[in-house]
């Protein structure tokens, strides 16, 4: 087979070797010496995992949690934004009107009756977190999620709130927003009075 030499393709040349290298044996001895050096160096890059835990960066996307507001209620307003944004369709929300006769809930209109995340289906992209207007759903740094059954890893609202209770107190995953009672969306009234957003900020706000 003859191929025309192209100008754009560079053909590599095999390096020329002398008889010393061509003998193999010195090269083999050299290789063995390198291997032996590593055997006796005593160095290791192994991390003894269960005993020594890795340092997880703060922007790690692990197991989800549902944040609580100051009164301990679930922050989520059941707007379905996360469910819509989720590319893996692992979030399922059933919304219900907030119980108006309960004084505890009187300032809220809607709340999630159920909030289920299939942790096995989730791809941990963090888009739910991005979509959430009230900063209710956040991804924590929990990376070692395991279970004996698939059912165990379908997290409902109670479980997700429990993750919040667990992670927000250890200091490893501080709540990332300090804006408003319900995050940026609750400041809507204040921002709306300022008029339309300045040009360049984008229509999405």
């Amino acid at each position, binding site marked *: *087979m*003859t*191929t*025309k*030499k192209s100008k754009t393709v560079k*053909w*590599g040349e*095999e390096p020329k*070797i*002398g*008889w*010393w290298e*061509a*003998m*193999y*044996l010195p090269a*083999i001895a050299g*290789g*063995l010496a*390198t*291997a*032996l050096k*590593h*055997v006796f*160096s005593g*160095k*290791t*890059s*192994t991390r*003894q995992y269960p005993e020594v835990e890795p340092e997880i960066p703060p922007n790690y996307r692990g197991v989800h949690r549902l944040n609580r507001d100051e009164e301990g209620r679930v922050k989520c307003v059941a707007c379905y934004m996360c469910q819509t944004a989720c590319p893996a369709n692992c979030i399922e929300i059933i919304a219900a009107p907030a119980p108006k006769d309960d004084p505890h809930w009187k300032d809220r209109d809607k709340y999630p009756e159920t909030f289920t995340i299939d942790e096995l289906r989730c791809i941990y992209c963090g888009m739910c977190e991005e979509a959430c207007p009230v900063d209710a759903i956040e991804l924590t740094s929990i990376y070692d999620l395991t279970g004996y059954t698939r059912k165990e890893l379908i997290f409902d609202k109670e479980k997700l709130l429990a993750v919040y209770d667990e992670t927000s107190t250890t200091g490893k995953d501080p709540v990332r927003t300090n804006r408003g009672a319900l995050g940026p969306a609750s400041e809507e009234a204040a921002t709306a009075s300022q008029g339309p957003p300045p040009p360049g900020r984008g229509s999405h706000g």
Partner: protein
Amino acid sequence: MFEYLKQSWPTLWPTLGAIGVILAFVPVLGLYLTFIERKLAAYVQDRLGPNRVGPFGIFQAIADAIKLFLKEQVIPDHVYTFLYFVAPTFSLMTAMFALVVMPFGPVPTEYTEGFRYIVAPGVDIGIMMMIAISSLSAYGIILGGWASNNKYSLYGAIRSCAQFISYEIPLGLSIIGIIAASGSLNIEQIVATQGGAFWNWNVFWQPLALIVFFTSALAETNRLPFDLAECEQELVGGFHTEYGGIKFVLFFLAEYTHVVTVSFLTALLFFGGWHFPGLTGPVDASLGGMLLRTFVLVSKVTMVVGFIMMLRWSLPRFRFDQLMGLAWKGLIPLALANFLCVAIVLTYDLPKHYLAFTALFLVVGSMVSARNLQMTINRPRSEGRPANNVNFTESAL
């Protein structure tokens, strides 16, 4: 029957004892060699290796064995069931069979009563039988590859078939020099001629034979620089792709038994067997002397095993045409030249130290010719030929 047993018991029990020792040690040895290999591999790669099961992970081998033995026996639909089961058994059988004439401790050249460190003592064709049987071990691999009815398995089997046939020639040729120099095919006799001083070891008289022998023996064991029969990157798992659980264990044990056999042969033929300076002369019957000599032999074997394992983690795998080139263009001429030198020295009754000179000359000569050898092994690529444009059949095998 009972009367016969009673009569033959004095000659029967040493044989049965030796068989027992081999049968008991080979599986344990195989298991622990895998463990040692994993540990060594880890250290070479700056890792820790298995260290969870027991202190330093020493029970890892047992855990592995239990896991493999309790595994579900999967028989793929498309295999030839009978051959599929025969292949691993045959593989291990031939590997163990070669150990029959292998002294694993000091064996006197004359027949003695009592326990001997060999199953069949005084076999006059010992080394020849060994080589003959070791060629049979290709059979197990080929059967496995064929019975698996899987193209990758078959590729592995065909590769190993070609490899075995090619490397048997330098293997036999390199040993011929040793046999001619010691004047016997009997392994005990060959070891006996290496008694006395340090420099009686064959390695100092025929270093080239050692290099050729060791290289081709390594190829016969299907170990790493030559493990084209099972190279994971190209052939999934080669001939044992379709095997799992206990059947895989048998193949695995066979491989490690081969490693042990090769190490024993190297120690016995080239490194003086159980002889060591200060620990030489005729084999004495005292238990201490016997144990000491066994210890010497086993330490030599351990060193060779360690060397084989280190080689595995230092050398890249050969390409198939390089593999064939090394055997046919490199090792066979060298082995022939070595044998020629030995023959000349023996025929004209020249003093033995001529052998060392010729060996030195051969080593230097092969150094000088190595460049040409290299060029024949790495075929020069023609002008403008793309580097990846290899012949199909070649790349497939």
